[in-house]
């Protein structure tokens, strides 16, 4: 039995759309778009700046969804960069691995989405720990470039292996039963699964922020980011902390991958598509800042969504345009602490 394509239950388009132009606009967008129209077809229509509310709020929702993934992924990158001084180009591949593990768990073991949300990050995080012990630990004292080349190469290898076995067409992953369907909010239709992704990502991001900025463990992490030698001389096993930090950053990527599986198809190149935008987000936010990664992630997702409505031609490039401007005005990024 072929499981249903993601979003299939959601994309019955309302036939009485009064603004065909707006619909065309919505279509001319990035690979991450989804269509949010009501299966009921009864949401009330009104216009904002000449844009139907459906299109506007629909795009804002898509922006928020993309923003959730940007935030989760750039948060992981920021955490890893802070402790390891390595720009983790494998992040996209690890995100993809998270989605694949969720897919394998469901197809081969019948383990559902909720369990996959826990198991996939642990498994993929564990592969991260192995990568750190085998490769990354030898690179910390060298220039950023070495870590970047190694993680980039690793990403190519991982993606190649997955493409070899699973091809490049996407594999479907069904939305869990509990999150099927959606809410009619009057001005728009809100699919339950998408609401869950936004809320859960936000919760994970804020929890991560809280642990790093407000707890004892976080104080160790921040201190070790500044002066690992001294923290170690206080009796803290800094190398182990670094390994676990990498494992955690990778687990965050895998978690994002599991959440993405029902929205975007599970495919070997899903990570490399997304990660390019995420790196732009990271550059805009500034590498070292946790809150910066979260705010910039969600913010740029929204900006991208709005651009799709008001100036769709630029929707694929708006983030890179912002990046260029930020690099000129604030090379360290909007929230960056160091240059």
């Amino acid at each position, binding site marked *: 039995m072929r499981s249903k394509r993601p979003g299939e239950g959601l994309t019955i388009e309302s036939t009485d759309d009064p603004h065909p132009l707006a619909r065309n606009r919505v279509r001319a967008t990035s690979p991450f778009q989804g269509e949010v129209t009501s299966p009921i077809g009864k949401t009330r229509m009104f216009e904002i700046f000449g844009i139907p509310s459906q299109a506007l709020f629909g795009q804002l929702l898509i922006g928020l969804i993309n923003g959730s993934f940007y935030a989760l992924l750039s948060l992981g990158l920021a955490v890893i960069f802070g402790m390891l001084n390595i720009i983790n180009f494998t992040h996209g591949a690890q995100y993809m691995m998270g989605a694949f593990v969720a897919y394998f768990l469901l197809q081969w073991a019948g383990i559902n989405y909720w369990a996959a949300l826990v198991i996939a990050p642990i498994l993929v995080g564990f592969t991260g720990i192995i990568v750190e012990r085998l490769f990354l630990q030898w690179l910390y004292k060298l220039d950023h470039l070495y870590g970047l080349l190694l993680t980039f190469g690793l990403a190519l290898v991982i993606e190649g292996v997955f493409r070899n076995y699973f091809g490049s067409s996407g594999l479907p992953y069904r939305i869990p039963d509990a999150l099927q369907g959606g809410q009619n909010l009057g001005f728009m239709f809100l699919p339950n699964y998408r609401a869950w992704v936004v809320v859960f990502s936000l919760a994970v991001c804020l929890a991560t922020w809280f642990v790093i900025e407000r707890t*004892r463990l976080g*104080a*160790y992490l*921040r*201190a070790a*980011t*500044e*002066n690992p*030698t*001294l*923290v*170690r*001389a*206080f*009796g*803290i*096993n*800094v190398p182990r902390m670094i390994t676990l930090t990498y494992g955690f950053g990778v687990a965050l990527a895998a978690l994002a991958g599991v959440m993405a599986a029902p929205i975007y198809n599970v495919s070997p190149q899903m990570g490399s598509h997304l990660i390019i935008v995420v790196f732009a987000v990271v550059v805009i936010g500034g590498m070292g800042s946790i809150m910066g990664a979260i705010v910039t992630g969600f913010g740029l997702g929204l900006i991208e969504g709005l651009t799709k409505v008001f100036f769709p031609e630029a929707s694929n490039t708006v983030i890179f345009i912002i990046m260029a401007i930020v690099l000129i005005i604030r090379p360290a990024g909007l929230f960056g602490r160091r240059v």
Partner: protein
Amino acid sequence: MTDAALETLLLVEDLQAWYGESHVLHGVTFDVRSGEVVTLLGRNGAGKTTTLKAVMGIIGTRTGSVRYEGRELIGLASNQIARAGLAFCPEERGIFASLDVEENLLLPPEVRPGGLTTAQVFELFPNLKERLRSQGTKLSGGEQQMLAIGRILRTGARLVLLDEPTEGLAPVIIQQIGRTIHMLKSRGFTILLVEQNFRFASTVADRYYVMEHGRIVDGFANAELERNVEKLHDYLGV
């Protein structure tokens, strides 16, 4: 007072250390007995800081022997050395900018029971208590030094390594640090102090070692200070 009956807490023998290719310590040998305050003197670049770092295990390569309570530390990583009961206050103080004063104070984990309580640290350095929420590096130089010393007294370490704690501080604060060292001594702490200011050192030290070019070249007790002042002026070039 040198009392041969006191048990040797730290015994350093033929300690050699390198920064990359450059050989900095050429066989340092000295000992510190339980409950003593021992001061390392020497000119700039003599190797005093390097000696503390080599004991603490935070220098690239080192050979020789560092025994603490009879246990060999030379092969251990610095986090294990700290867990053995040594604590280090670096010359540059090492206050963390991304931590507030309280987080800085509570950062070093307890390695053994019997350290000062946070309340006792505040009693010693009342300034800290009023600045708990400030960013660590927003404190004045003197307050940062108090924080750097205060935070390692909580850990229960019995041997405290202090690298030039009075450097660049006002006389009142130097006196406060002197009182702290006396208090620590009375509570049974053992202190290995690095100082350029031998007038200050003479108010707290039991014994001195003089370093030159990565070696210990002389050593004497505080009681013999008078007799050695001439020589000391030579060594230190004052």
